[in-house]
């Protein structure tokens, strides 16, 4: 038997402090109460983190407002240099960031190391280059920044979502107050140290840790000019409502229930990889996950057989092991939600299948799972599970595939697998989704705009389009 011996990444590269304050106006300050952040793979407490109150948020917004006066007037080429500096420091400290991200989030080190952190650095490099070229971005001459941006990010890609928010905001001349998710605050706090290391002027970036109440205080703050949120559609709705009647500009990156459509003439082996990557990447904690597999009936049996065989090779376990494919579910709460929806799937008559695999005793885990015999009426075909759970449906014709794919209030992403070029282009036209991956899935790039149709939110992050969210246009 070729059994892979444990290959753990060393965690000694990262130095986690016992407790962290809030990062306001360039330094760490005490907050009132504190909460614990744990390693979801073993439930070990990693650190205590301050919970920002309404007053703390107000301090942070004031610091950002004060900094805005000078930051927005700094020539673009000088702002750019700070962002380039940050990008470089991220590259230099990439291993440390990757290990910390995997510890706090539970994602496999191979993903934090090979996907998240490289994309974070790339994002800062990309937007750094825009800072002194805004006149040429297509938003008219001399486009103005908005002011203070309140940014709230989720726990699934903590550092990457931070980069998606902070890099364009700063490039355009805004200052920010960012709230990381309560279960994954640590990489944002390390980023705060990186801002210090880069000599970023105080108040340009402020990090306030906390839960929902902290986020609400930030959204409601009257001196915030821009709200950017990535997270659930429910919270997105609340934010849209909360900013109604104000002058705040809003962008929302919300949930999804993407169809991944496999035609009988697909490159099957790559399609299977695409399905696996589409739903099991980052434990399925991905808003654009390909969580609804639509298979053409004529290849259903062979495809399912290949998919199951491939799932049999997935390695679930220690996120720090370099050979782990699927890490820990980020929190007890999220695990409960996944389990509840999976239970509903079975109760509604769908058939669950998972490859045999042992799960660690401590921590939060869920086996990669597929549900077959799912119809559009099942809740697991409609609701976002946000876990490693795939619902498999079938279709007979391209028209039926489109109809089913679009039959959802979401519209974030979609996948098409076929070797026929004209079919790809026709399907891509008809899919109501912000990102369409043809013969690939879950690809991201700082130059490529990302964002949804319908209830998946509005606004785009990435590319030239991403600037619009942070300019008065």
């Amino acid at each position, binding site marked *: 038997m070729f059994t892979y011996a444990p290959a753990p990444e060393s965690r000694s590269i990262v130095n986690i402090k016992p407790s962290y304050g809030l990062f306001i106006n360039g330094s760490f300050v005490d907050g009132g109460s504190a909460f614990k952040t744990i390693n979801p793979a073993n439930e070990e407490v990693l650190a205590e983190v301050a919970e920002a109150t309404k007053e703390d948020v107000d301090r942070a917004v004031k610091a950002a407002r004060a900094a805005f006066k000078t930051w927005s007037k700094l020539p673009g080429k000088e702002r750019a240099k700070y962002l380039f500096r940050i990008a470089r420091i991220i590259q230099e400290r990439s291993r440390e960031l990757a290990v910390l991200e995997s510890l706090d989030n539970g994602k496999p080190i191979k993903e934090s190391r090979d996907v998240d952190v490289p994309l974070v650095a790339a994002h800062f490099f990309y937007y750094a280059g825009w800072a002194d070229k805004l006149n040429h971005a297509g938003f008219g001459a001399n486009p103005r920044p908005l002011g203070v941006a309140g940014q709230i990010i989720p726990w699934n890609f903590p550092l990457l979502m931070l980069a998606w928010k902070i890099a364009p905001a700063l490039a355009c001349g805004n200052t920010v107050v960012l709230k990381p998710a309560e279960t994954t605050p640590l990489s944002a706090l390390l980023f705060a140290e990186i801002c210090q290391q880069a000599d970023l002027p105080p108040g340009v970036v402020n990090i306030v840790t906390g839960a929902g109440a902290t986020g609400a205080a930030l959204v409601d703050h009257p001196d915030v000019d821009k709200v950017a949120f990535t997270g659930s559609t429910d919270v997105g709705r609340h934010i849209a409502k909360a900013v109604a009647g104000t002058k705040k500009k809003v962008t929302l990156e919300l949930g999804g229930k993407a169809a991944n459509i496999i035609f009988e003439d697909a490159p099957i082996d790559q399609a299977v990889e695409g399905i696996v990557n589409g739903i099991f990447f980052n434990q399925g904690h991905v808003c654009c996950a390909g969580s609804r597999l639509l298979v053409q009936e004529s290849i259903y049996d062979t495809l399912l057989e290949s998919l199951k065989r491939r799932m049999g090779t997935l390695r679930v376990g220690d996120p720090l092991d370099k050979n782990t494919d699927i890490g820990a579910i980020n929190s007890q709460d999220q695990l409960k939600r996944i389990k509840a929806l999976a239970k509903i799937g079975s109760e509604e008559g769908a058939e669950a299948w998972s490859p045999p695999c042992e799960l660690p005793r401590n921590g939060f885990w869920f086996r990669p799972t597929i549900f077959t015999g799912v119809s559009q009426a099942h809740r697991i075909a409609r609701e976002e599970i946000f876990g490693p759970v795939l619902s498999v449906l079938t279709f007979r014709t391209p028209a039926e595939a489109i109809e089913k794919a679009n039959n959802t209030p979401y519209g974030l992403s979609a996948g098409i697998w076929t070797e026929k070029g004209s079919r790809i282009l026709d399907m891509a036209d008809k899919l109501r989704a*912000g990102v369409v991956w043809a013969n690939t899935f879950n690809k991201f790039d700082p130059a490529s705009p990302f964002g949804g149709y319908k209830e998946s939110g509005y606004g785009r992050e990435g590319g030239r*389009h991403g600037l619009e969210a942070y300019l008065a246009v």
Partner: protein
Amino acid sequence: MPSKARVAVRKTYKLFIGGAFPRSESGRTFEVDGNNVALASRKDARDAVLAARAAFGKWAGATAYNRGQILYRAAEMLESRRGEFPAEEVDDAVDRLVWYAGWSDKIAQVYGSANPVAGPYFNISSPEPTGVVAIIAPSSFLGFVSVLAPAIVTGNTCVVVTPAAVDAITFAEVLATSDLPGGVVNILTGSVAEVAPWLASHDDVNGLDLTGVDNAELALTLEQSAAGTLKRIIRRSSPKWTDDPGIGRMTAFLETKTVWHPKGV
């Protein structure tokens, strides 16, 4: 002695839904400048959204060239009937239609992009219409045309609510003779306060233009209600309609779709 004075044939101002001119299902009218005009109801709003949704696929799928031709045709029709519209606004309104007509096949080039991603992928972003847009039109005729044209030129279909019924319905006659497919523009004359909330809360409406809402309180409730399905919003404002409109009214109701494909032999 027989009178030579001819009795004029008066026009009945009805709603404009799905390319037809129906009365309000409620049977109600209100008076504008001595004319009885249809007073739209909640159910008229429902019918108008159905008509707009039904027209969306074909209109969004029409070629940009075709949409531009139709808007230009509307400009021609408006020019030929200029006497029926407010004299101080009609020239600008014609020019505005011509301006937007020209945008139909340029907006994707200006607002789309080819994205140089770090990998062997073809990657391109193009704008697509948001869907069905509800518009609360400002009362001026130029304002009405200036909110309507940018919404539809990119492929959206719309339901417009306005109390300024006479100009709006006369303009509907312009549209009806411009080869604009039925349902692309639907016009509900009547009370904004009565009809707009049904559109703001409607699950099958994707965008809401509040430009013409006079009342700040009402605008707030409408925006809050629209949050239920995360509609794209243009907030209320009173721009100077003769200014260069920019492209913001078009992009507010555009989605960006990014398509990836590997490059390999």
